[in-house]
């Protein structure tokens, strides 16, 4: 039953997403079949997303009336996720993305790698620091110096 309710909420979500896409598309005009405007295909994609959402609700409602039938693969409940570790990793990634341009590649990479290598249980300060310095410097040499990728210099413009 919980699965079916989840299916219905999923359908509602996609109807809303499809509706938003359609409304946004209307701003750019749909044109006609003879001369389709820039919003034409986006509108069709909105119809597809919303339409499938409606079919999801319909199929879930129909199967609700049938006893004990299950739908495959409702997915894992988000509540079962180890949020602490995920939030910690994502926080470092967001900070890395924000800092990369202003601070520069080497410093931001060192900070991000230090956070990601660090093990809270083992408190491995030394090894995290060592790995972070090694990785940030060696990746700089490989990608910036050898492969000539354009990495940001930030506070060290001469690098």
């Amino acid at each position, binding site marked *: 039953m919980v699965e079916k309710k989840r299916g219905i909420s999923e359908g509602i979500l*996609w109807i809303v*997403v*499809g509706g938003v*896409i359609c409304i*946004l*598309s209307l701003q*750019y005009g749909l044109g*006609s*079949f*003879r*001369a*389709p*405007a*820039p919003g*034409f*295909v*986006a509108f069709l*994609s*909105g119809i*597809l*997303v919303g339409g*499938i*959402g409606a*079919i*999801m609700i319909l199929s879930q409602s129909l199967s609700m009336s049938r006893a004990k039938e299950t*739908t*495959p*693969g*409702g*997915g*894992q409940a*988000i509540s079962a*996720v*180890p949020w602490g*570790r*995920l939030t910690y*990793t*994502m926080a470092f*990634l*967001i900070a*890395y*993305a924000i800092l*990369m*341009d202003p601070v520069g590649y080497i410093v931001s*990479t060192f900070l*991000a*790698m230090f956070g*990601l*290598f660090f*093990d809270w249980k083992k408190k491995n300060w030394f090894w995290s620091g060592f*790995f972070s310095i090694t*990785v940030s410097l060696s*990746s700089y040499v490989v*990608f910036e110096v050898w*492969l*000539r*990728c*354009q*990495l*940001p210099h930030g506070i060290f413009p001469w690098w």
Partner: protein
Amino acid sequence: MSVLSALSYGFGIALQPWNLLSCFIGVFIGTLVGVLPGIGPAGAMSLLLPVTFGMSPVTGIIMLAGIYYGTMYGGSTTSILVNIPGEAASIVTCLDGYQMALKGRAGPALGIAAFGSFIAGTGCIIGLIFMTNALAGVALVFGPAEYFSLMVLGLSLVTYLTQGSILRGLVMAGVGLFLSQIGQDVVTGQTRFSFGLRGLIDGVGLVPVIMGLFGISEVLLNIEKLGEHRTMMKTTFRQLFPTWKDWRKSAAPIGRGTIIGFFLGILPGGGALISSFVSYAAEKWFSKHPEKFGKGAIEGVAGPESANNAASTSGFIPLFSLGIPSNVIMALLLGALMIHGLKPGPLMITERPDVFWGTVASMYVGNVMLLMLNLPLIGLWVQVLKVPYRTLFPLILLFCFIGAYSISANAFDLYVMLIFSALGYVLRKKNYECAPLVLAFVLGPMMEKNLRQALILFDGNLSVFVTRPLSLAALVISVLLLLTAVIPFVQKRRREVIAEED
């Protein structure tokens, strides 16, 4: 130019020092990526895409192609030794490969996987040469209506073959299609859906999307399992060569795997994963002792490993002949070709024979390199596997950041990548497949261009899509595919297959 002279021209290009080096780097990185769980070929190719900007188109494409088929080789090593598939296409190899390893026969399992992959890869290159030429000739008469309908068919097939629900696959395709509309309109040049953000004026970048959906979200899923113990088998080089008896048992599965992989690889959505499962099912069906499958039957390694390599080679056929990618990897290669100023399609073989024949010949060279790499370097790959995931995942994340940033040296791409990594994480948790989204995202601009061209050319007459035979056939097959998926019997079978795959 005859096929033979064209092929010798291709070898002339592939054997040039820079191209040889890029082929070697490609297959080496590909094998490494295949060995390491947590980063797939799409992520690795996205990472190295900016590196190819400084190379000639043919050198760059040779390297990217090498990564792809190299991954297929490397994926078998982890499946056999650790029971963890390094790559999705090697999932089925775990079933018998790991059982062989438990019985002390890891060497012959690794050996037959490498030899089978080499034979299949080589066989498929010959098929690729003839099939691409023939298909390119036919494709010259295609109009926008045919192209549009073929792309619809491609998307339908990918959606049909997704592991989860078809409805979810279709939603993903719809979202991908919308995302492809962000940026400048292909006909009028008007900027759409940019919400005033400068970074969206040229649209959403393919590499950040792929890195987010396949690279970072995979890491986020894997770090949930940090600390899981891996059991490793020991093997020596002397033990790697299969016995005469092993060869006798494996010859037919390799042949069948090559044929299955070749034809399924051409189909949009077919690809390496499905062909390996079909090959396994076929071998079980052909075997006089199906009860031995899952308990260490060498046929269960030889067939699927040959099939996934064959499919990875034949996937190039629709890309080179029609300009239509059959899977996410080919979509990425299409993007790479376009960045290098090339237009894949029927005219590419005549307009840029160096790229086509050079890449084809490099695949053969790459297959030889892989055979030489995989057997003696098994020890190295085993050492690589011993690196704990806690040490590995920050490096994978770093590579994703470098790959996404260096495409246009713009931090905006990093934000896009992070948004898609969160989206990919949630979607995959909820059993949504990201492949239809990416394929629709890549095909979107081409679909839009062809749809609008067809409508303008035929004065808004929608019947153009059903009065031209090829277009009609493609649309009918698409509709039938999607309709059959909602028939209760087919639904039940799909669920059974998905359950078996899980």
